[in-house]
């Protein structure tokens, strides 16, 4: 692109910077409205339980208590956040109905005149729960005798008729048979929290014209509005969402958790309602990055060419799927890595357990794929007897290569990026490595 650029490419000072350094930037949780009520949630103390009863009697007598909301108040209580892009089935409960499937699952929303009153009333809601056996491990959850988290008899999310997101490219078994080395390992990660400094939250305000303005720190304003409209069964035009300023997201503010219930509370009380997560709710109840378990098996020639890669990945989605199925599709597309591998088989499973639901986090499905396969590359290098740089140059993908998901690579620059890194840290590459480019290969010989 030879055009001369005047503004793009320059380190222009942040246009919102003065607001940030003076503290004048308004975050959703900074807003105070006359008559504003506070919403706090009664949550399951158990990982898995049948709800036999909920007694609000004592809570209702707390001074300042305004009202409680249960599942009966939610017009469309069972939803799926990705239904907007066609993901099925609807499976998550806005407020738990007859069963709780993770510790911290919301059961009753309490709205009160003050935060203290709301917390006191929450503490006085009596739950009658019958504890059920729970499952916490992705592979245990797939066994036939495992406790069942979902309503459909097993703990598997179905991808268009398959229990996993599959990639099938070439013939992995034939590739393994032709290989000199088989390198196998299993990679695990525990769940982690996005931990933005500003917790998830919103304020829903009834307007004179019958609409509701919702001030929110969502990462996706219309996505939140559209899901709220579905859950509350109101036309989108009655909702007005205002945001755009987020105190850190990292994927943690893509779920639509606070807005529907705060808006419902505003509708039921006619007053502004503030629902902002406490830090412990942010840490314990808001979505995590899922735990992953990734089995990786590679067939490699003695000169270091990877002939076949088989990946079986399990993402621990927790009690509901939220964004995890989509993350698994992204994972499956990337689990072979930036390498040209002629035979690839990938199965990526979205597994339900009685854990806090996982969802989006920075690197969505790819971070743990990159972790597993880049540690695996070092294992391969060691087995073959070459250095970690060399194994990557040998297998790096080029433009024109067909990737396992069938797309032809168009903007591969792995080789150039590795060359730049080597130069930057003073690692001396071989002349051959220095001369390589990501340009299309002269013949298909290169990808075997």
């Amino acid at each position, binding site marked *: 692109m030879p055009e001369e650029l005047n503004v793009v490419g320059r380190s222009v000072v942040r246009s919102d*910077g003065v607001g*940030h350094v*003076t*503290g004048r930037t*308004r975050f959703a949780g900074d807003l105070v409205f006359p008559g504003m009520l506070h919403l706090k949630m009664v949550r399951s103390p158990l990982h898995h339980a049948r709800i036999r009863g909920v007694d609000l009697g004592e809570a209702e007598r707390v001074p300042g208590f305004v009202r409680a909301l249960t599942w009966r108040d939610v017009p469309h209580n069972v939803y799926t956040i990705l239904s907007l892009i066609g993901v099925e089935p609807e499976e998550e409960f806005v407020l738990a109905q007859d069963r709780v499937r993770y510790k911290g699952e919301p059961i009753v929303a309490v709205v009160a005149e003050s935060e203290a009153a709301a917390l006191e009333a929450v503490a006085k809601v009596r739950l009658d729960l019958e504890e059920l056996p729970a499952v916490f491990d992705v592979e245990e959850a797939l066994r036939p005798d495992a406790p069942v988290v979902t309503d459909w008899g097993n703990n598997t999310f179905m991808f268009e008729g398959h229990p996993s997101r599959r990639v099938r490219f070439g013939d992995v078994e034939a590739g393994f048979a032709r290989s000199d080395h088989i390198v196998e390992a299993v990679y695990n990660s525990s769940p982690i929290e996005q931990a*933005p400094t*500003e917790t998830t939250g919103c304020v829903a305000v009834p307007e004179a014209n019958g609409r509701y303005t919702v001030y929110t720190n969502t990462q996706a304003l219309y996505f939140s509005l559209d899901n709220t409209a579905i859950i509350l069964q109101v036309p989108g035009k009655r909702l007005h969402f205002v945001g755009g300023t987020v105190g*850190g997201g990292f994927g943690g503010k893509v779920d639509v958790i606070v807005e529907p219930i705060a808006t419902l509370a505003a509708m039921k009380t006619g007053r502004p309602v503030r629902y902002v997560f406490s830090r*412990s709710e942010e840490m314990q109840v808001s979505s995590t990055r899922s735990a992953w378990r990734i089995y990786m098996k590679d067939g490699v020639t003695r000169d270091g060419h990877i002939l076949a890669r088989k990946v079986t990945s399990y993402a621990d989605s927790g009690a509901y799927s939220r964004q995890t199925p989509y993350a698994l599709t992204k994972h499956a597309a990337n689990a072979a890595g930036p390498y040209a591998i002629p035979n690839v088989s990938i199965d990526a499973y979205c597994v339900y357990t009685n854990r806090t639901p996982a969802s989006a986090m920075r690197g969505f499905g790819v971070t743990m794929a990159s972790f597993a396969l880049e540690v695996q590359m070092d294992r391969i290098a060691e087995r073959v007897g070459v250095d970690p740089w060399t194994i990557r140059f040998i297998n790096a993908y080029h433009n024109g290569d067909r990737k396992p998901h069938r797309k032809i690579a168009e903007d591969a620059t792995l080789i150039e990026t590795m060359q730049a890194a080597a130069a930057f840290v003073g690692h001396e590459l071989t002349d051959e490595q220095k001369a390589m480019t990501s340009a299309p290969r002269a013949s298909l010989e290169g990808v075997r």
Partner: protein
Amino acid sequence: MASVIVNFELCGRDVEVLVQPMATLQSVLRNQLGHTATKEGCRQGGCGSCTVLVDGEPMLSCLLPVEDVAGRRVTTLEGITPIDGLDPIQEAFLESNGFQCGYCTPGMVMVTRALLDHDPQPGREAIVEAISGNLCRCTGYQPIIDAIEKAADRLSGSGEQTGER
């Protein structure tokens, strides 16, 4: 419990507030006095986003009952921000991109103010020590440390001149 009246000095002005006993300074500043630059990242003393100065010392306002500041001098970020333009510390944060989302920034600026008041030319270790109770999830701290070094240089007159100031 009966509410109590508490008097203190806020950013150079006497204020009187009617509060529930044990109300935190943070909640009074944010909800009664409109000083929302004082953030609430955790309300557990774990993130530093609510840092204010009490008699010039950095304090976590989320852990401080407002009765404890009776008769004392409280300074929030609103108090060190000039009506026009920026304080040199704020200017350094802006130029160094010593923030991303901006949520930890008020706390960072306040601990920097306290640090530079006590130690106008802190070394890197002193800077790290000063901000070690303040959590930033975005920047990786390097740009914040850069900003504080720049502010120290400016305020002690040893640094580059901005030309505008």
